[in-house]
Structure formats: structure tokens, C-alpha cells
């Protein structure tokens, strides 16, 4: 940030937790939207998977993080996306079976190759190699495909990736940095 001249409106992409401590020391100097700060932490965790079960939920979370790894994003954003599968599985037995069978297959392959369940396989590269082996499967494609919108169409995720979303209600960018680039 310090390398930027003040004339370019640059966004803070740090995750929320770090922002708070940052803000504590520099009150009033940040451009963090108020809504991001007032957001209640979600209670989502693997136990929230009542239909698919907590073990399947934990594996799905690990899998989702391995498919779209953003180290600075908290688990809850991945879990929010996966809750769509949890909810749909309550009404769609075929989907539930595809997911539970898919997770079982993931675990079986991880055990065969690395001696532990998928989620318990410690090295990311090993887990990714298991995913590579099933990436053409309908199960993988379903989880991956839905994550594209589940994760990247989540307005809470956008600030951490430098995207500001809807602008018309703020008068667009005509007075908010549409042409303020200063490094060319």
C-alpha cells in the first residue's frame, strides 16, 4: 500500500480478522466497508451437514479448499457454498448418493495411495493428485461447477479479491477512481 501514491483509490484486500487489528491501530484511515466489519461470524462448520453427515461435510470442505485454494479466505465462505449441496441433498436422493459415493471414492483412493482418508492426507499435492484422478467424474464436476458461483458470487468474498460489486447506488465511479491509475 505504501508504494501507492494517495491519488489512486486502492482497496484493502486483507481478510476481516486482520483488518480489525489493523483498524484498531489506524482508526478512520481505512476504506473497509462498514458492512464487512459488522458481519456476524457464521456458525457454519462440518456439523452443519445434517443430511450429508459431518464426516462427508468435512471432506467436502477440504475438497472445496483444494479445488479453489485461497489461503486468506476463511472456511465459512467455502461452507456457505457447500450448504447449497446440503440443502439440495435433502430433497434430491440421487444428488445425495452421488455426493456420498463420491466422497467415499475419494477416501478410498486416498487410503490406497497415501494410507489415510482424503481429509486426513496431510500434503496438499497428494490430495490434489487424488482430485486429478477423478476430475472427469460427475461428482467432481458438480462440486467444482457449483463452487464457481457459490464462492465467487458471494458478495462477502469480493472485497478480499479486490472487487467492489454494485456501484450505481454510489453514483458509479465517476468520482471514485475510474481513471486514477498512477503507475503507467
Amino acid at each position, binding site marked *: 500500500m505504501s508504494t501507492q501514491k494517495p491519488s489512486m483509490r486502492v482497496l484493502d484486500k486483507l481478510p476481516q480478522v486482520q483488518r480489525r487489528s489493523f483498524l484498531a491501530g489506524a482508526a478512520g484511515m481505512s476504506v473497509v466497508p462498514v458492512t464487512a466489519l459488522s458481519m456476524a461470524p457464521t456458525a457454519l462448520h462440518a456439523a452443519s451437514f445434517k443430511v450429508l453427515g459431518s464426516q462427508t461435510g468435512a471432506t467436502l470442505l477440504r475438497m472445496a479448499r483444494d479445488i479453489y*485454494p485461497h489461503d486468506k479466505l476463511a472456511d465459512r465462505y467455502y461452507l456457505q457454498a457447500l450448504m447449497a449441496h446440503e440443502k439440495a441433498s435433502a430433497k434430491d436422493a440421487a444428488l445425495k448418493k452421488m455426493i456420498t459415493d463420491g466422497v467415499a471414492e475419494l477416501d478410498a483412493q486416498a487410503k490406497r495411495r497415501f494410507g489415510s482418508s482424503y481429509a486426513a492426507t496431510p500434503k496438499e499435492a497428494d490430495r490434489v493428485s487424488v482430485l486429478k484422478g477423478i476430475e472427469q467424474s460427475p461428482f467432481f464436476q458438480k462440486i467444482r461447477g457449483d463452487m464457481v458461483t457459490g464462492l465467487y458470487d458471494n458478495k462477502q468474498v469480493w472485497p478480499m479479491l479486490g472487487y467492489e*460489486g*454494485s456501484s*450505481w447506488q454510489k453514483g458509479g465511479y465517476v468520482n471514485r477512481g475510474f481513471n486514477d491509475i498512477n503507475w503507467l
Partner: protein
Amino acid sequence: MTTPKKFSLNDDSVVVIVGSGAGGGTLANELAQKGINCVILEAGKHYTQADIDNDEWGMFNKISWLDKRISAGGWHHTKTYPGLPAWIVKGVGGSSVHWAGLALRFQPHEFKTRSTYGEQAGTQVMDWPVDYAEMAPFYDLAEKKLGVTGSAASGLPMLPENNHYKVIAAGARKIGYKNIVRPMAINSQAYQHRPGCQQIGFCMQGCKIGAKWSTLYADIPDALGTGKVELRPQSMALRIEHDAQGKATGVLYADKNGKQHFQKARIVCVAGNSIESPRLLLNSASSMFRDGLANSSGQVGRNYMNHATAAAASIYDKPVYMYRGTSIGAVVADEARHDAARGFNGGYYLEGLSLGLPFMAAFMQPGGWGRDFTSAIDLYDHMTCVWVCGEDQAMADNRITLHATEKDQYGLPVPVVTKTYTANDDRLASHGLKQWRALSEAVGAKRVIDMPPYPASHNMGTNRMSEKARDGVVNRHGQAHDIKNLFVSDGSQFTSSGACNPTLTIVALAIRQAGFIENAMKRRDL
């Protein structure tokens, strides 16, 4: 405000226009201004600016044409976008709601591709029956209507350059490009009752304030204000009927409840975009016209062109925020010329086109995942993005056909969109991506990611114009060779695709066609 006009279904004096986009909406307004009564049948809903959100997926799901369609042929869409061969709008205003506003003219040689390129084996490349000189005054009228920036006809100045524009333009200049343009149908200041651009972005989600021209809030309300036009949204044209002499008599359509009505007509104009327009003609087959209406040439549905395209994202050390402001950044026109030395026919534009994060994640690398993918997305705010838009060649087997068994919610056969890229397309797109990479690296891009073409909004050629009846569907005025009171009024009448975005040419043709229809009606030819 005039009371909305209502016409009787039995009123056979009206012009029935199928579709309300850049073609149909413009035509309706032009005819209405001349005092001619029109009924517009629009398949989609009548959204207003209150329905427009700065939300990519929200608007995609709200306004896109998502009725069942099938991608077929050799293109990657059969895998990446199997049910979405094209990205167009179902709603009043049609795809003029979604277009980004880039208002380029065809270049003179693009009307004369067969003469310019010579015979192209395996293709159906053909000259238009009109030329640039004849179109030029209609381009002026179109630019005035749309408020095109930098046009003498509109008198409007250029839009200010946003960050995205500046990065692309700087790179372009560094590698020797000189022809950096951006004629936009977005008001650079208040014009024709619509406000100036506020750099909101989200141009392709519909302009919230109406600074970008769309028939939705420009020509359609103007047309309705004349008291000469009735707009019937949620009215899906099912077939065009004709009499024993082979003259069109009207259009059978289904209303929002699925109830069928037959609107009589003096003249029928088809403007449903290049998938629906030929589909309607094919669905109107009768004992007299067994292969579909206006199809004695067998060309209805053929020569489907959607531009030779590719896309790419470039990542820089520092932020760009490409989404801030007008979605079209700088447009490099240096490669738009025809130059056979490059190894392909026709040319292309490098069009800076910003995508929001949700669409970038979906289009950057369909099916992509892992750290290779996320490391790019992590730098979304440092990206520039290009869409390569280049000339596509007419091919007989790139076409719209009707599925043998599958039906849509109206009971109509589902359209199958068959497309296979040609070697010319591949060479053009590769050249464009190579030049984009050089342009980006010249101003410090650290990583350039080639993206496959995403579903096109430019659809052309499936009811093409031709001098001779045996070569195409309509004549130089968009009038069917076979049926004199049947017109095609959208991009499906294009004989070639040109390298540029089609909307300005669609509007210019609609203005010209309205004059022809008026004169023919006065002469009692129609």
C-alpha cells in the same frame, strides 16, 4: 403521454414486428415516426430500469435467453456451454439491453468480402448486395440516434478514459499501434432525454441510468409515444401464416399463459436474432413452402456467424480495477484491416472488455481449478481483459436447425446451433492473442492467460442478403426474395460478419429498411 395503442387481432393493416431489440425496436420507432401502425411481438418480459441490478449472475439469470438450445458441431461450446450457444437477451429491448455499446462501422471491404478475398474454397463467402457508400448516410443516422461518441453526426465528445483504457492504450502504443478508438453508444453527456455516463460499469447487465443506448428505454418508448405502436411482451411468435398466393397474412403467437392468438398483418418483419429468426421461418413450413418460409434457396439457418473470437486476461504488479467505469476499455483497430500477409482473411479488433469477478471466475478457464487458477483470481484487481472480435466466414454447415424430437415450453422444436471453427478463425484468433500478449507485456504484464471464447452475443448471417434469390434469403432491403411482404430486420440478414460488433449496422439497416417499407407502402407495392 399518449394512451397505449391497441390493435385488433383482425387488423390486417398493421406491420407486425417480431422482436424489439436493435433491429425490431429501431424499425418500430422509425416506422411509427412515419405514421405507420405497428404491433411488436416480444417473446420476453418488459423489464424496466428498476429491474436492472449491478449483478452479473443476477442479471444473467433474469434477462438471458435461457430457453433450451443445443450447441453442436466441432466448437468447444459442446463441452463448455452445451446449453448456451449464445449469450443474448429475452426481454423488451432484446440484446440492446446487454450490448456493451461499442458502435463500430463496417469497413468498406467488409461488404465486398468475396471480391476482396477471392474465392474461398469450402466457404460461402459472398459480397453484400449493398456497399459502404450506400450505407454511409444510414450509419450517420444511426450514430445520431444512438448518440455515438466522437461522431460528427451526434456531436458528442469521446468518453473519458478509465484505468482499463489507459493500460491497454499505453501497451498498444508501445508496440506501435496507432489506431486506438472507442466510438460508444454511451452518452458522454446528457443527450436525447438520457443522462451522461457515470462510469458505473456493468454495461452488459443493462444500464441502470440509461446512458447507454438501448431500445428498451430509447426507441420503444419513443415508438409507443407516437400512438402508432402496440408492444406485446411475453408474446412468442410460433409461426408466420400465408395465403394461397404465398403472401404473409400474419403471425401466430403464444401469450404468457400459453394461449395462442393470430395477429393479422399487412407486412411481417422478423427480428428475433440470428437463432430465433431462422427458427421461426423454419417452423413456418407449409404445404406451399415445405422447407420453411423464404427458403427456396435453402439458405435459411445457414451461414451462422458469431465472430472469430478469443479472450485473454493480463495480470500486472499493481492494481487496475478494470471494472471501474465503462465496460469497454480501449479498442485497438490497427488489425481490423484485411491483410492476407498475416495468414488469414479479414481482420479483428482488440477490444478491452472488463468482466466482473463472478464472470471472470466462470469464463477465464472453464473447468479450471487449483492454484494455477486461484493465483490468477487472487489478482483479479490487477487484471486487464481483452475480447478479440474478428471476421467470421460464412460456412454452409454452420447453421441453425430444428431438433427432430425435443420441444421447448411452447411446443416448438428446440434449435440446434451447429458451429465448427475454420482454420481462418483459428489463425485470426491466435494472431489476436499473440498481439495482446505483446501489448500487455510491453507495459509490464507478468502473466497473460488465454481464455477460450465465451458464448457470443454477436449472431449473424442465418437469413442472409443476396443479389440473387438462389444465394440467400433476403434482398438488399432485407425483403424476402420469395415473399414480398416478409422482411428480416436483424443481424441474421448480414452477408458477412465484418470484424466489428454488429449493433450499429443492424440499426443502420433498420433505418434504411423503414424508408424502403414506407415508400413501398405509399406505392401500394406492399
